[in-house]
């Protein structure tokens, strides 16, 4: 990695201002590729309208308000879940010594691992053989 994290002093978790300053010092050392990736990370969202359609069809609630807090919360959770999937898939690729694009087999393996870690809500099914 081009940014050497050992050179950046550690900061207490409660200090808001220092955290912002630390983020600035890290971001200022980004390469162009890292910067564009970080930009995509910050800006990307799942469209509210699509999430609204999905939630309305699942819950049967009609005419959900556009600034419903439930919408923002679910979108936030979903985005972080995508992050977990992609990051775990990258770990899987490193373990298998593969590079390049992430393929569906990596995502499936990463999904299986997340299930074992309990990060995926399970539909409670009757388990007959324990």
């Amino acid at each position, binding site marked *: 990695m081009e940014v050497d994290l050992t050179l950046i002093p550690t900061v207490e978790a409660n200090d808001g201002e220092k955290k912002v300053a630390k983020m600035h010092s890290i971001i200022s050392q980004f390469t162009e590729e890292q910067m564009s990736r970080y930009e995509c990370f910050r800006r990307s969202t799942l*469209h509210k309208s699509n999430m609204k359609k999905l939630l309305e069809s699942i819950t049967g609630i009609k005419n959900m308000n556009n600034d419903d807090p439930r919408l923002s919360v679910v979108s936030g959770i979903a985005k972080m879940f995508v992050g977990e999937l992609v990051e775990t898939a990258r770990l899987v690729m490193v373990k298998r010594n593969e590079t390049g694009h992430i393929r569906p087999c990596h995502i499936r393996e990463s999904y299986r691992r997340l299930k074992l870690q309990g990060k995926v809500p399970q*539909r409670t099914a009757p388990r007959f053989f324990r």
Partner: protein
Amino acid sequence: MSNTPAAAPTSSSKSKAAGSSQAPEKRKPLFQKELQHMMYGFGDEQNPLPETVALVEDIVVEYVTDLTHKAQEIGTKRGRLLVDDFLYLIRKDLPKLNRCRELLAMQEELKQARKAFDVDEEKITSLD
């Protein structure tokens, strides 16, 4: 990722009530473009493979569906589906919980800011 219709009778009846299609496997892609940017931001290549994006979308839709069903089960005991039902479900996952608190706080701030803006506008128009 097998379907268990016997174990979740309430959820299947709810989806029938909402009028969902008969072939739930054939969903129109909802989040393709946004997911491509998101996956790049989280570590994939600049242009993720389309089959990977399709798989991630299926997984995310299933995740949101299961999460929402569980939240609704909790919510029906109280009456309505509230934000707190979702927060309860991710209580063990600290990064997600903190992020949701941030998002809710930001929304509140925006609401207050908009209210203050509307009040100022009223003052200005009433002065005329």
